[in-house]
Structures are given as structure tokens and as C-alpha cells.
């Protein structure tokens, strides 16, 4: 830590490379909002290029967009930051189609973006909350694969949930 004598804090830039070769240049403070990147930075120290073979460029870009907003909002020590983050989170998940939601969740989990995983899982939960079984099936295009009579039996066993 004492190796540097400069007092100005220079922003370190990291290069993140997605599975399809797309690269993103991101400030360290932004990328380390993701637990997995944070660990890599701490472990490898000077390595500036990080390869992420499990995430493609489209979804990595979206994850980083989210990180950037949150990192920026958190640097301004404004009391309204939580509100701004909440508002921005709402916008971020509002129009996501399910395919994007799926890939973003997988990416956020792989990158240990805990807050983002929470945001996306809550979004899925909101699509289930208060809905009837048929409505949920319709929303997610779930096909019932029970044998005849099996569903009725399960409903009976868990009748308390359907009252």
C-alpha cells in the first residue's frame, strides 16, 4: 500500500471481455460492484484484462450499465440517492422481456452481483404475486406436465394455499 507516493487517486480502468469477444472498458469502482470481479481484482492485483467466458456482450453490457448507475449515484453523498437508485432500478426492470430477464439473472449470479440478483428475482416474484395458477402459467408459458389427476391431488394436499 505504501509503494505509491502520489496523493491523487487515479481511476484504474479494467478491460472486461465477454464470451463473444466484445470488450468493455470500465472503471474499477464500477466493475467491483460485482463480487466476482472484486475477487479477481483483489487476487490478481495488476491484471487489467478480465475474461468472462460465461456472459455474452449484450448482457454484460446491461449488467455494467446497472453497476455504473449505482456506482455514480453512490459517489454523490446525497440523501436522495436511495430514492434515485430505486427509481432507476424500477426503470431498469420495467420492460425486460423474459428471455432478457433469464440471461441477466444468469449473468448477475455468475458475476456475484447480489443486489442485481435481488432486483431481478423480485421482478420475477412480482409477476407471480397475487396471481392465479392459470395466470402464472400464461405469463411464463409454463406447460403443465402432470399426469391426469395428479394436479388435482397436489391441489388437495395443499388446499390451504388455494383458499
Amino acid at each position: 500500500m505504501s509503494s505509491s507516493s502520489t496523493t491523487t487517486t487515479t481511476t484504474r480502468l479494467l478491460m472486461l471481455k465477454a464470451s463473444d469477444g466484445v470488450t468493455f472498458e470500465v472503471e474499477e469502482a464500477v466493475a467491483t460492484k460485482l463480487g466476482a470481479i472484486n475477487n479477481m481484482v483483489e487476487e490478481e492485483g495488476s491484471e487489467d484484462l478480465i475474461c468472462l467466458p460465461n456472459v455474452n456482450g449484450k448482457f454484460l453490457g446491461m449488467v455494467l450499465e446497472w453497476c455504473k448507475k449505482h456506482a455514480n449515484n453512490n459517489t454523490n453523498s446525497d440523501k436522495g440517492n436511495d430514492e434515485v437508485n430505486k427509481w432507476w432500478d424500477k426503470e431498469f426492470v420495467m420492460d425486460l422481456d423474459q428471455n432478457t430477464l433469464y440471461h441477466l439473472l444468469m449473468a448477475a449470479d455468475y458475476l456475484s452481483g447480489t443486489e442485481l440478483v435481488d432486483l431481478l428475482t423480485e421482478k420475477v416474484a412480482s409477476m407471480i404475486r397475487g396471481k392465479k395458477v392459470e395466470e402464472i402459467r400464461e405469463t411464463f408459458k409454463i406447460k403443465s406436465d402432470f399426469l391426469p389427476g395428479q394436479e388435482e391431488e397436489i391441489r388437495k394436499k395443499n388446499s390451504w394455499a388455494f383458499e
Partner: protein
Amino acid sequence: MDDKIEAVDRISSLPEFVLNHILSFLHIKDAARTCVLSKRWNCIWCSFPRLEFDQTTCIKDELDSNPEYMEQVREFMINVVDKSVLRLIQNNLKIESFSLTMPVADPNLIWLVDRWMELIVLGR
């Protein structure tokens, strides 16, 4: 193009721990109802490790607190909690969290709560 994408069920193919995470944001009744969506969701619900019960959410009409009705709700709660705990224990599944909220302190319930706690601790 977009219609085609949406016609595929992506959410069910999320890993089990992600689906568990989704259920944990829901009221236990909403979470339990997912058990009839498909075999996949039934499996997820049957091993869902968080048991959180709140009797106050089972009371349909707060003004209707006549003893008979309250007794019905109480019996219902006990039945649900008992079944849920046994479902996990009998299948050797772990319970990550357990909470029970009941509005009236009931001395007759103590032995039952003790029994649930004993089962949960032994099952760990």
C-alpha cells in the same frame, strides 16, 4: 420475433437456488400455489427451505374476531405449519429458516412449537 421468444418458458429453467430466491420474496401462500404449475415447480416448492408463517395474514376479516372463527384460523395454521415441517423433515431436506407469528399467546401451543423446534434442530 419477440412473440416467438416470449412463447418459450425461460423462467422455469433457472437454477433451483434462483427459483428459491424468487419464492422467498413471496407470501407463503403465493409461493405454495406454484406447486401445481408443473413438475419442476412442484419439486422447487417441496424442497423450499424457508418456512415463514404469519397467522395475521390468514385472517380474512379483521373485524370478525369471534372465538369460533379465530379457533378455525388457529387450527388451520397449526395444520399448515405441521404439514410443512414434516414435509421437509421426512424427505431429509434442510430448513434454512423458520418463523411463526401468532397474535394470541396460547399456552396449549407451547408443546407443539417445542415439537417443531425439536424436529427442525434434529433435522439439521
